């Protein structure tokens, strides 16, 4: 099955240079589910280079979900992939707005078979920083949705630190790295962007990422779900203490939570492009398991 590729016009409030988002839409294959689509899924990609490393896995998972009867939309956020705008133009809120627009498009598009597509469950599927965007978008969406998290960070702060570290590592390879981290932090605090590994990081994006937290949106409906996946190549892997704590918060907020540890490589950061087939199988099974 081939996905449909198209450009989605961005919200009017955004600038004219940044008006198109590249999208891939995988229509639901309803033969397996008795004629009606089972749900809608929006993929929210991770930060910077992790997005490119993860593209293959995202496509494999999107296909698997489509075969299982889900309509899946994969969207490149402002300044990422084949969307318009530069990375340096993106703010945290502009990305959240893109996610919201993806949700609305999925709800409205007409070629999802189903008795009433307004009733189909909407899943926000995030990888890494994409999970943080999913939570913020759900807060602003004001409608119930389910969450599918791949390797979710409990907060954005460590992700920002890892990204800033790329610059330290680059300078380390070139000879001298001392004081680089402090000088970048200073730059951002003064409102200037910094360039890291070919990406221009705006102060607005850095602060949005730094403040993001994986706290459950308040007031979920009775049936809202979170499926939480982590990957490990260790045989004895368990959830980290911070993951356990975060999951407990979601349960206390009323979400039905499934947590899974799956064998596979950290494909969003490995040197070679790698796949984690066990993650695809387990994810499709978990989402499908009403």
């Amino acid at each position: 099955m081939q996905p449909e590729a198209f450009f989605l016009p961005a919200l009017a409030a955004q600038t004219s240079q940044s008006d198109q988002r590249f999208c891939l839409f995988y229509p639901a294959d309803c033969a397996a589910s008795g004629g009606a689509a089972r749900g809608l899924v929006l993929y929210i990609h991770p930060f910077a280079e992790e997005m490119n490393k993860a593209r293959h896995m995202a496509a494999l998972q999107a296909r698997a979900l489509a075969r299982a009867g889900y309509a899946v939309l994969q969207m490149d956020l402002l300044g990422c992939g084949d969307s318009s705008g530069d990375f340096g133009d993106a703010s945290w809120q502009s990305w959240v707005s893109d996610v919201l627009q993806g949700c609305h498009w999925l709800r409205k598009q007409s070629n999802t078979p189903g008795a009433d597509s307004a009733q189909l469950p909407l899943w926000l599927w995030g990888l890494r920083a994409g999970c943080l965007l999913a939570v913020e978008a759900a807060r602003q969406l004001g409608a119930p949705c389910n969450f599918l998290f791949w390797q979710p960070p409990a907060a954005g702060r460590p992700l920002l630190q890892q990204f800033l570290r790329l610059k330290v590592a680059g300078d380390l390879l070139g000879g001298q790295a001392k004081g680089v981290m402090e000088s970048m932090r200073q730059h951002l605090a003064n409102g200037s962007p910094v360039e890291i590994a070919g990406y221009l990081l705006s102060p607005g994006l850095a602060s949005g990422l730094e403040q993001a937290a994986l706290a459950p949106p308040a007031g979920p409906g009775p049936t809202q779900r979170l499926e939480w996946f982590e990957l490990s190549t260790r045989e004895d892997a368990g959830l980290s203490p911070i993951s356990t704590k975060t999951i407990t918060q979601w349960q206390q907020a009323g979400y039905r939570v499934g947590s899974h540890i799956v064998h596979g490589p950290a494909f969003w950061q490995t040197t070679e492009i790698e796949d984690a087939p066990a993650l695809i199988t387990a994810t499709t099974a978990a989402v499908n398991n009403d």
Partner: protein
Amino acid sequence: MNISQEVLRVVDEVLSLNGRSATFTRDTPLLGAIPELDSMAVVTLITTLEEQFGLVVDDDDIDGSTFATVGSLTDFVSSKLAT
């Protein structure tokens, strides 16, 4: 815990060496000798070591000598675990 063995396991996994690290000794050079070890891989190595060993790396602690050899990287991790 055998720190050296754990460090090598992380190096092998992060750099996708597919077991090549089995022949590595303390004196095996890393930075500048292994083409897979670029800046993104250095960051992934640090992050993975933080997660797997439960330690925190202060970025101004890092310099090229930390990643010079298997031995220097192992010693760095050992020193972080000791503090």
